[in-house]
């Protein structure tokens, strides 16, 4: 029997379900970071404003903190975390450098349209040690991109702005049709954030990067509509056996 027949016969006799493509991608990204030496940490989806914003140098007047961008719960006692960065804060408060952790999970923004969902997933990593610099960050990004998109992928770094990193960058890859596609944000941890976490920023420095799981899954799994991930439609989810 040819391998093709084998495959077919097994597909008509066996019953195999599917992992969710977002969980699959999230795990793959975590595995990649673990292969570099980052250890996995989790944190709560319901966070304090302090961990979600203040400690990350996101000032009280920052637009992201407004009620139309962030979900507040229990009479503004907590927020639904807007990123997985509070996990990094919790880790930095708990551990002494050197620290290398990767976190992943659900995050929430008050958004709901054809390209934005109120809940999506992020994978973030942080490394704090002596002499960590931007060129180390570039090395990691190149490695990650070549694992995900192939060794020949063309990568572009662009300056960007995040309150918790300085310098900050966004990374684009060149798609098959020649267009640049943004795939992640990263930077050197802002010394203010290290100081907030009682880490001496004169002695230690850090790099951080964050990836939107849906965005990367859409690119790599050939999914055009982000909402397809959350319709729980077996016709869609069941395609991969």
């Amino acid at each position: 029997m040819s391998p093709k027949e084998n495959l077919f016969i097994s597909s008509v006799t066996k019953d195999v379900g599917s992992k969710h493509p977002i969980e699959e991608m999230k795990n793959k990204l975590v595995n990649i970071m673990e292969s570099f030496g980052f250890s996995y940490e989790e944190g709560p989806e319901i966070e304090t404003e302090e961990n979600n914003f203040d400690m990350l140098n996101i000032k009280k007047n920052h637009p992201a903190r407004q009620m139309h961008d962030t979900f507040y719960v229990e009479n503004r006692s907590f927020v639904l975390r807007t990123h997985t960065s509070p996990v990094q804060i919790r880790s930095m408060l708990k551990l002494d450098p050197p620290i290398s952790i990767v976190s992943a999970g659900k995050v929430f923004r008050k958004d709901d349209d054809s390209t934005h969902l109120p809940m999506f997933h992020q994978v973030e990593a942080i490394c704090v040690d002596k002499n960590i610099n931007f060129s180390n960050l570039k090395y990691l990004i190149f490695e990650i991109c070549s694992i995900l998109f192939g060794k020949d992928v063309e990568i572009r770094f662009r300056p960007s702005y995040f309150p918790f990193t300085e310098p900050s960058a966004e990374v684009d890859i060149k798609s098959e049709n020649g267009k640049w596609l943004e795939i992640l944000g990263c930077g050197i941890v802002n010394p203010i954030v290290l100081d907030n976490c009682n880490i001496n920023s004169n002695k230690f420095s850090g790099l951080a990067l964050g990836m939107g799981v849906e965005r990367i899954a859409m690119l790599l799994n050939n999914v055009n509509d982000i909402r397809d991930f959350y319709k729980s439609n077996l016709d869609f989810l069941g395609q991969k056996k």
Partner: protein
Amino acid sequence: MKFHYQHLLEILKKTPSKNELSEILFQLGHENEIEGEIFDLELTPNRGDCLSLLGLARDLNFFFEFKNNLKIYDGQLEDFNFDFINHEPNACPEIIFLYLEIENEVNSYKDYLESYFEGLPNKRVNFFTDVSNYVSYELGQPTHCYDFSSLQGTLELKKIDKKKDFITLQDKKITIDEGDLVFCINDEVINLAGIMGGKSTRCNDKTTEILLECAYFRPDEILGKSTKYGLSSDASHKYERFVDPALQDLAIRRFIQIVKEHATIKEIKLYKNSNTKHLERIIELNPSKINSILGSKLDNKKIIQILNNLFFETIENKVRVPSFRNDILTANDIAEEIARVIGYNNIPSQKINLPKLEKSFSLSNFLRNSLTKSGFTEVINFQFSNKVKNKSISIDNPLDQNKNRIRTSLKDSLLENLLFNERRQKSSIKLFEISDIYTVDSNGDIHIKKVIGLIASGRVANNYKDFSKKIDMRFIDSIFKDLSIDVSKYLLNIDRQLLNTKRKEEILFLEIPLEKFEGTFDDVDIGQEDKNINFFKYQEISDYPSSMRDFSFMVSDLDTINKISQKIFDFDSKILKDAFLFDFYENAAKHQVKAAYRFIFQDFSKTLTDDEINQELEPLLSDILKLKNVSIPGYKNDFLQ
């Protein structure tokens, strides 16, 4: 921000092509798209200083050299004796009022002012407002023109102590909240400060006498107000992101110059209210620190050259930050400036070595692997719910009232998923989800529990062994047989009578906290993580209903079934979505094997008709019937003719 390519070239010494300009703007962190002669920029929120031609030209100085050639009115300005009280000098430390009167109305514009309305999203309003908008486009300083004849009384800048109604110059009525910053005359609001002026004092085509307000408002005072009141203005966009506190004099003089180039000025007078000295920001210049942040080996000379080109003054080991850069506070900010100019892509990459770690066991991933092997499909649902349950967490600002709680169980979401798939004619539905769920106690403390939820109904599976079996408690129990966990105490049979469904099969649901699985793995093979890095390509799915056809093939031996299966597998069809062997019977004595296949059809653009399905099947069945000793009992012979 949109700008005209030619407008920017006029204040640059070099003349980059559009593509060169676009590339350097990207390098500097300014995403852009070119539409004909227009550049559409997406600036990061820390770069309010670049929201003008002047700001962009300064940022591009290292590459294309800023040409400071704007004509500025340099005449003397008489003092204006004007009744103004600034009650909020902290919110508005700098404010200038210019009284200006011209002889006649202006109807035609010089080419440069005319071109401001070509290709850019700007509409003509009236002469003074148009000049005000143009100055903002050129220099980044918003100004506001009042029709001077409409101002009767003392002008006050204050935070109102009670709500007040206000009609904007765009004729929109809003109620301004207590504590918001406004300009008032006789206690009537005439301008929502830094955001939008009012209808009662706006200029029109006939206006020849104006009061021009030119201020620096602290970003905190303006932030969020335009969203709150549903007012979108260029002024609020700029003030929210920071306007240079030292720009007002230049803006006023540029405004006068443009007016002068269009009209005869009868009178100009100036009132100035300045409450602070701008604090100079001085940062230590430490090239080795900059190189240690970037991992670069730049020499001092290069670093100083870059900083000077960005209008940072360098004095020995200090850097004086220009007044328009409120985002530069630390050595890391200086390092970013250097990196932007040399190009992030030109910074070397340097290997980082971290100690390798043993991958720890993940219970979630183990359950995920195990359940998918048992035919379950994983789903992810939003955490929102509308069920007010004991200890459920309320969302203060939900997307809508149907999503105003955080779910305390996965049951409702999974049940909804199951019913959705039943409506899509799925006969075997087995779903699971792993998620944290949250509750709040009476002290306001949040509690987290990671759970696995599982729901199933219908046929055990779509294959010949399990097709006739129905999902029941025994089946669910069998999935967890290798784990020493008693699932029966978590298992629920959901009553269909409360659901809007005609299906009759049992619905089984269970939810187990992951902590209950701890210690149950001693004798279980936990398997290997999937290290495959090839990514599966999903196909788009149709929203139209599917249709099925069952065919029973009579054959003489098992090998022929494989041949039939192969032909189905090889059959090239856009509408055949699935096919599986659902029944199988071997009569060894008669050398007969009966194999029943189910074919599922679905189209992307319509509901398929019987004829369309028959036509699609015809060549496949015809091909199968050519195999030796294959027949379809009861099958109409005329179907294939």
